[in-house]
């Protein structure tokens, strides 16, 4: 459509048209041309813009995070890479809204190689249907010479799983991640891969890469290292569902920590 407009502008104006009308038309065309990059093709955008591919996304449940993610949510059918130094910085509470929404939609959530045992009570409080969470352990029973990521790749390729959260082994080679990203094209839903923080130094095939840090009690700090658009300069701090009571939170914020409560115990024996 745009190509047709450009050719029309390049042609000499028909003689019957008054000059002013021609000038107006050219101005209009110029406006179309300026609007072009992102309207031309979904994979085109200007460097300062956030990508708007029209791809389907799943709302993260945090309005401030959605505003920073291309298309306003976690991408579906692509990997989202989360980098964290150690488990327990609030990653599950961050992902919970998206995963719970997937479960409420009647679809399956699979966890691959979680780093520790999961507490059912804590997940139930977050809204998970706990007995519908499938945990896949691939590393314990790995036959020698077989591919540890085989199971993850199969799950991505099948296209029937609603959401996948996978803890990947350390120092994963780039081409294996690339294979996972290709498999994720056939996945219908969100897919999170969690990796060590040191992976930030190496390139990734995933279109979205977020580094997570604990930002104090019940807060998580996000730095969007890679997205369709400019990298996010200032870290984003999100308030997570709180496990602390109001007083404990105040205590944490004030920085004045209570002395060891063990002193309150009296050995009566």
């Amino acid at each position: 459509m745009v190509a047709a407009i450009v050719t029309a502008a390049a042609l000499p104006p028909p003689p019957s048209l008054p000059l002013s009308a021609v000038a107006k038309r050219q101005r209009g065309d110029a406006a179309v041309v300026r609007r072009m990059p992102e309207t031309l093709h979904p994979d085109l955008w200007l460097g300062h813009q956030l990508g708007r591919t029209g791809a389907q996304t799943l709302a993260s449940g945090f309005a401030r995070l959605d505003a920073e993610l291309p298309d306003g949510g976690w991408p579906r059918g692509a990997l989202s890479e989360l980098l964290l130094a150690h488990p327990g910085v609030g990653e599950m509470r961050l992902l919970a809204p998206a995963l719970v929404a997937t479960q409420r939609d009647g679809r399956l959530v699979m966890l691959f190689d979680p780093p520790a045992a999961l507490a059912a009570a804590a997940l139930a409080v977050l809204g998970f249907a706990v007995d519908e969470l499938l945990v896949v352990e691939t590393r314990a029973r790995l036959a020698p010479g077989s591919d540890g990521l085989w199971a993850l790749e199969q799950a991505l390729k099948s296209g029937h799983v609603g959401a996948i959260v996978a803890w990947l082994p350390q120092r994963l080679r780039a081409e294996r991640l690339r294979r996972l990203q290709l498999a994720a094209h056939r996945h219908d839903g969100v897919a999170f891969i969690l990796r060590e923080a040191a992976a930030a130094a190496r390139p990734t095939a995933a279109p979205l890469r977020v580094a997570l840090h604990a930002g104090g009690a019940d807060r998580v700090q996000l730095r969007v290292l890679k997205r369709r658009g400019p990298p996010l300069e200032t870290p984003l701090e999100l308030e997570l569902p709180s496990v602390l009571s109001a007083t404990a939170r105040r205590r944490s914020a004030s920085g004045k920590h209570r002395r060891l409560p063990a002193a309150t115990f009296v050995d009566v024996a």
Partner: protein
Amino acid sequence: MLWVALHLPLLSLESFAATLAGRAAEHGIALVDEHCIAAADAAAIAQGVKPGLKRATALALAPRIVLGQADPARDAEAMRSIVHAALAFTPSVSLQPATEPGRAADTVLLEVQSCLRYFGGSERLLERVRASIEPIGHSLRIASAATAQGAAILAHLEPTPLCTTLEATRRALVAAPVWLLGPGRAHWEALQGMGLRRVGDLLGLPRAGLARRFGETLLAELDAAFGRRADPREPIVPARAFESRLELFARADSSEQVLHGASILLARLVAWLAAQHAFVQRFRLLMHHETRWQQGDRTPQATALEIALAEPSRDSAHLLVLLRERLAHVQLPAPTLELALQASDIVKRAAPNGELFPTRQSEDEGLVRLIERLQARLGAGGVQRLCAAEDHRPERASALRSDAVARPSRASRNAAADATAALPSALPCARPIWLQLPEPLAERDARPLLEGRALALLSGPERIESGWWDDDLAERDYFIAEASDGALVWIYRARLPLSSSGENGWFLHGRFG
């Protein structure tokens, strides 16, 4: 009545080829019976081998040919699965007895008049019959006629005629060569000497004379073919349990070779299931090993591989994938000589609907298959479901269970109304998501340290004292503490006074993920 005859011209060659693995058959195969070549495939015939040659002559002509022993039992086994495949279409299926003694029957007869309308006409029906027999791996000639005997005779012609009326059947039979009649083959030379080449030539002759010279059976067969004599056939009923054996031509050392034979057995299993209109729940592959006559040899006679399915299936591709994954884990103690596939645990139910667009049902089915595939490779414990348990001790409050994982219960689907429900801003019970084995923490000035930095206690103590009844008493005071990087951890110390557990100091038990 409309009869369809399925004739397998290369039955014995193909059933022998099924026992060969890989590319063994590429230089031609031939079957030997009593030191003479009984049948040869196209590659062997191209090298000059033809039926009737001595075994030594054939080997001199084509030294790389694979010679196998003709085995009517093996052919009958293969024929049985053709019968099963046919039984999926009509209940009245019978075998046309072999014309020569010592050979297996190679023609199956189906009465299809009653099911033509259901399958949408004879053309569609034959198309489906062809498609269902194709995975078993036999070349097929299909003829139809108004009489059973007529169809069996016409199936030997090239090209095979498809007659629907008695008139057309009679016309086609008149032009057929006379040796196609069973007894005609024995009297072939006499008939030829009398100038009787076509079946039609016999029709004009006096019946009494024919019967005297060539026997009553020739006349009986002729009458049955032309529909002048009743020709009742006993329908075959499939066995209640499936068992099929395949004796391998060469010893199979690798699981890949075993898999080739197993895929043929699986195709037969699927044909049997189709005949029963059933789906298999579990099946068993037996691999019989070579016996070693050594003292103290403890090699078992056979290795059994039991495969249970979460969702009954009769998709041979899916069954083969499961078998491949399981076989990859099995260490065969000795080379395999013979395979046997057994199945008796079947479920009868309606066939699934075909679907154009993905639906909930097809997604569930795909999920079950994915989980089965993962379990086949990772073991049954590889895929587990999280369950909550009623216990105050955190390490016992949740468990992973590997049973019934492949059947997602989807209870929450009904609760989809509040799909947009937001997360609670505060959680009523402070439990960490990640639980680990209690890790002793160092202590400085009576304050716990994590990775060399002091932990700040934010909340607590929460006392958990439980389990005196099962010798796993927990007496702990839990605190939520903030690590130096801001992450929250869950730590405990043994209940101070009167703690009977004997553990001392601080322990890291969980992290708030």
